[in-house]
């Protein structure tokens, strides 16, 4: 298994070319305000070609070391002066060995290692030992230090507990989610997957064959939390500490499954209940559910002369579960893996004492009509636009945002990539925007309560 590393990521859309990162780098690395010493170079142009074919659309670009997994600069070095650091993942430059031949610069197609004439040798980004100066000063959040690589290290030697080749749709986010989740939860678990995409893709198996390496079962759509509660009771009775995990769709959570869920939460049953929210009944052919947002096209809220998609708003299940005062409640998105992992850890721990609820937003390429390759991008924009928000809650701590809701991208940026919103009128978009604003305001009020207490 390969190793994942932390990296600096650049979000071009957010960069305004201010150059603060370059100044910070030059100061950190050379104690100078001259950006010639910066190992990160932001590249702007005054003359956009406007021709997309010319591969220069005038966008802001970046040159810096990508800390390649299979670095050519290292291969090209005749003096063993560059090495890939197996622990940190950075490519380390060793001054004592460098002979200044510049062959490393021949190997790099990113402008990531370059000759600095002022100081007479090559320089490159060293990620500031995991605390990059550039990221810290970026006022727009265009630079981020992405630490999700460490997740892969954490789980890479853990067994993938679902069979290979689950029959999920292309680009399905749930398969990614369940593989990650089970790897982390481990084998001492009983998994409940109520009817929906998750068992539909074969997790419980077909025709007498199982889809997982752990005990797994189909509850009814309606009784997941209750069945898990019963299982847990018996294991507690015989003195065995077994984790209870539900992987449920939003219908089995917020609609027909809500009563048993609410009851189990009230009784503080020890289980980790995960809602994989794809905003509808996708397994049965994209019908509308209680978590389908207003305006959405679904097969039961079609678009026509008399109806333009769903007429009512979605309910905010995570908030409802917070009002149950569960041991732990959190929302998550797979575009923010490290955030998810942190919450998963907390949820597993909380489920040892009581009810833990994780609401994972799961955009569905098939049902929402967007290209399969865009799933994570849709996940990301869903969060960045505040359409959904990332937070967690415990009774002691209260609500805490794990990602700022300030400076959201425009709602339209999120909506425009998704087919089920293609027909939206301006008024409908405005409605969604208002709704999102209200949600954020209301959650912020809870956050303030947290701060006060």
């Amino acid at each position, binding site marked *: 298994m390969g190793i994942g590393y932390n990296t600096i990521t650049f979000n071009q859309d957010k960069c305004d070319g201010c150059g603060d990162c370059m100044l910070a780098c030059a100061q950190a690395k050379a104690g100078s305000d001259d950006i010639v010493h910066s190992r990160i170079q932001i590249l702007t142009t005054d003359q956009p070609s406007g021709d997309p074919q010319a591969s220069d659309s005038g966008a802001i670009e970046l040159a810096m070391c990508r800390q390649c997994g299979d670095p050519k600069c290292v291969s090209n070095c005749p003096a063993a002066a560059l090495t890939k650091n197996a622990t940190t993942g950075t490519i380390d430059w060793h001054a004592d060995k460098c002979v200044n031949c510049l062959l490393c610069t021949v190997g790099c*197609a990113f402008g990531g290692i370059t000759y600095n004439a002022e100081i007479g040798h090559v320089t490159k980004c060293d990620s500031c030992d995991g605390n990059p100066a550039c990221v810290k000063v970026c006022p727009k959040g265009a630079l981020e230090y992405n630490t999700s690589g460490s997740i892969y290290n954490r789980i890479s030697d853990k067994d993938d507990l679902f069979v290979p080749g689950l029959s999920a749709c292309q680009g399905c986010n749930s398969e990614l989610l369940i593989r990650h989740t089970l790897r982390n939860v481990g084998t001492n678990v009983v998994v409940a997957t109520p009817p929906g995409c998750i068992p539909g893709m074969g997790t419980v198996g077909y025709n007498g064959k199982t889809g997982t390496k752990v005990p797994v079962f189909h509850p009814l759509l309606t009784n997941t939390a209750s069945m898990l509660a019963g299982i847990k009771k018996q294991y507690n009775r015989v003195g065995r500490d077994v984790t209870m995990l539900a992987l449920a769709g939003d219908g089995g959570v917020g609609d027909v499954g809500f009563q048993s869920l609410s009851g189990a939460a009230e009784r503080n049953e020890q289980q980790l209940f995960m809602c994989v929210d794809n905003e509808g009944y996708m397994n049965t052919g994209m019908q509308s559910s209680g978590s389908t947002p207003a305006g959405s096209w679904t097969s039961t809220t079609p678009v026509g002369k008399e109806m333009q998609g769903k007429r009512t708003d979605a309910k905010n299940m995570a908030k409802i579960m917070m009002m149950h005062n569960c041991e732990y409640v959190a929302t998550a998105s797979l575009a923010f893996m490290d955030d998810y992992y942190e919450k998963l850890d907390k949820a597993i721990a909380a489920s040892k004492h009581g009810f833990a609820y994780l609401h994972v937003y799961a955009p569905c390429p098939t049902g929402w009509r967007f290209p399969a390759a865009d799933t994570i991008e849709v996940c990301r924009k869903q969060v960045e636009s505040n359409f959904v928000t990332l937070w967690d809650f415990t009774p002691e701590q209260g609500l805490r945002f794990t990602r700022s809701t300030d400076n959201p991208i425009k709602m339209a940026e999120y909506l425009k990539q998704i087919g089920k919103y293609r027909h939206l009128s301006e008024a409908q978009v405005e409605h969604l925007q208002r709704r999102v604003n209200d949600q954020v305001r209301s959650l912020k009020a809870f956050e303030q309560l947290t701060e006060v207490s």
Partner: protein
Amino acid sequence: MPHCKYLIIGSSHAALEAVSAIRMQDTEGSLTMITRDSHLPYSPTVLPYVVSGRSKADNVALRDQSYFEQHAVEFVTNRSLSSIEPDCNTAVLDNGDRWQYEKLLLATGASPIIPPIPGLDKVKHLVLRTLEDAVALRDASQKAKKAIVLGAGLVGMHGAENLAEAGLEVTIIEMQTQVLPGYFDPQAAQMIQSAFDQHGINMKMGHKAVSISPQSSDQQNTGCRVELDSGETLDADLLLVSTGVRPIFDYCSGSHLQTDQGILVDNHMSTNQKNIWAAGDVAQAKDFYSDTKVTTGILPDAVEQGRIAGMAMSDDPSLKNYSGGVPINTYTFYGQQAISVGTSDSSSGPLNGEPTDKLEIELTVDSDKGYFQKIIFKDNRLQGISGINAALDPGIMWQLILRRIDLGAVKKEFVAQPLETGRRLMSGTWR
């Protein structure tokens, strides 16, 4: 009979890169690397710095012993390949050992050409290709006073600078009228040469050594006298022969491997014989600009070819075709940088004979500042860029050439600022 899945001959850039490519795909298949060298792998390119003392001979290894253990590589030193029997997948070594391979990579590189100058074989002369050569040259430079360097290619120029810095009186004899032909045009070459002139190096350009004899006065017979085609004679107590290199493939005789200047290979570095690949200085592979096959003799190409060979040998599904050799040179002399990527001279090399109206040459020179920049476009595509003390990223330029990226819309900007424009273009391409 020893047997292995992958047998690699040679232990330098092409060989090492092939090994890492194989191990990405196949972590277990038995792999043996055999070299005639007696050291841990090192690069010939580092040798000038061993001569100058900047690098220590025991600190230049590209891999340490633990690498071989970690990657399940059997590393055999002091053994050279002497013949191949492709019909029975057998490689025969100098000690008579017969190795059975499933896949064989020939990465034996090149060795210095010793020109047929009468008398050269009678005098002590030095070359620079191995670590032993470097140590010998370094020792000799500490004793000698006057040096003659035959050839003003990369090795000769590096050698001359080193020797001069060590305090010797140095003369370079070069048959051609310019230094570093193939990488720089005459004008740029002249700028480089003038730095050597300024540092007191005697440049005998356009001259041939016609005969060489031992220096009569010298008791220990270390000195020599070189006679030029002009009749002039020069004495020296150190003679460095750097008149180019020739691929090592003597072991091919009788094997039916197709060879020319090197071992002929296709776009996957595969030879005409089943299960045999060749890469690096020893291989003669596709030229980027023409349909001919060439030996490039440069390190980045050895890496590139080694990678492709390794991927092909281990059936890596992401194997791509070799895009063809492009001349590339990064050369530091007296603290200055000369960089050349691709064609540097339209009057020689592959572009020679192109209708001139198709070529666009952008030249910027500031002799006072020692600044030179030459860009050659054809159909708005970059063909080559060379510069002295001009900032550019050769890796980016190489990609712009290989990908034949249309620079029509940004040409002015590119000519004014090749560094920034190149970076921006490639950043956009990579995203």
